[in-house]
């Protein structure tokens, strides 16, 4: 059962129920993408029940509709930005830049995908641009050797938030965009201006680090 696509989404049981007799999960879709896609499909409906009408008004420049878009999607955009950027100031800037761009370019949105998908692409692009602009010195390397300076109690076992924060900016961005937001390696490579294998290797190295920090009980 290795084939499948988005059209199968409603015909198959949830991935958590898909296990072979040997115990290995066998999902028709990449497992992490299953939930991500389902969430993306319902995101518009949850955040903005009348999304189509609001978008139509926003395209005509209606400020009330533009503000409605902001209210509906500010939170997920900020979350994405904050997970990718290192500081709250950067995330707030990305939030503002994203909606400035959305308001200016909403006329170019053709409506062939979900409005959240479009806004999210703008947001991730702005967040990655912010990372490039800041030019953190550790873009290519996992900087665990720098992290102890920020650590708290040595007795405190590292949680996922801290471990994520400890990754390099690039690795953290790849993990978030791929595993949480559901972007493919091809999409991430395009957004970052790098290769697919770069994205894959960043993801693998990041997971290896996370596993080491979290599962082996490394202290922060």
């Amino acid at each position: 059962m290795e084939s499948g696509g988005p059209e199968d989404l409603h015909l198959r049981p949830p991935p958590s129920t898909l296990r072979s007799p040997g115990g290995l999960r066998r999902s028709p879709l990449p497992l992490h993408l299953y939930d991500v896609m389902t969430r993306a499909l319902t995101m518009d409906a949850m955040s903005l029940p009348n999304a189509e009408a609001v978008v139509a008004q926003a395209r005509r420049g209606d400020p009330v509709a533009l503000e409605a878009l902001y209210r509906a999607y500010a939170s997920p955009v900020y979350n994405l930005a904050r997970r990718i950027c290192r500081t709250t100031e950067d995330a707030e800037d990305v939030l503002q830049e994203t909606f400035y761009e959305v308001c200016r370019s909403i006329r170019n949105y053709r409506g062939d995908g979900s409005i959240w998908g479009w806004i999210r692409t703008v947001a991730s692009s702005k967040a990655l641009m912010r990372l490039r602009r800041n030019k953190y010195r550790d873009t290519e390397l996992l900087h665990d050797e720098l992290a102890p300076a920020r650590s708290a109690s040595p007795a405190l076992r590292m949680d996922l938030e801290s471990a994520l924060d400890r990754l390099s900016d690039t690795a953290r961005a790849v993990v978030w965009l791929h595993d949480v937001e559901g972007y493919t390696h091809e999409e991430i490579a395009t957004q970052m201006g790098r290769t697919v294998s770069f994205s894959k290797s960043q993801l693998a190295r990041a997971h290896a680090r996370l596993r080491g920090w979290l599962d082996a009980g490394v202290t922060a």
Partner: protein
Amino acid sequence: MSPDHLSMELLIAVRDGDRSEPGYAAARQHADGCAACRAELDRLHQRTAQLRALATLEPAHSAFPAVRQRLEADRRHRWQRRLSWAGLAAAAWAILPVPNYVHLAAGAVALVASINSLTGLIPVAGYDGSEALGEWLGVPGLHRQALAYGLARLRRRPVAAPGGHARLFIWYSLGFVVYNLAMIGIVAALILR
């Protein structure tokens, strides 16, 4: 990870069903029969689920007022640019000691730019002036809403004016019609003169 077990790259490929990864089929087969790799794969699944379950971080304050300010500044700058070009053209027309046809071209640019700028500021023209009037009256999208209402009334369709602005919408629609008729009249007079 030891050579006997799957690397993180292959574990992720198996998790994602990424058949483009070299060695994917063998890795899947290996994971089926290897308890250690299966456990590792389960940890990967759990970690991914935990990542997705992290709390949503909220912004401390709304960024929308700043966005709105920037959009308004953009609009002002657009008009300032047009007026600047008009001013430059008019200045060139006035002071440059050049042949007549350059004077004529500069004058035409100045005239068109000025008309463009000024007509945009007319409250019933549907551009910046309408937006400013709508903002002043607290009726966003005044132009669009008023014309939609006016057209519906003209077609004798029963329609409720949003926000109870029926009178405003009718006056605006009438103003829009008068403005356009006046513009057509001026252009016709200039051509026929």
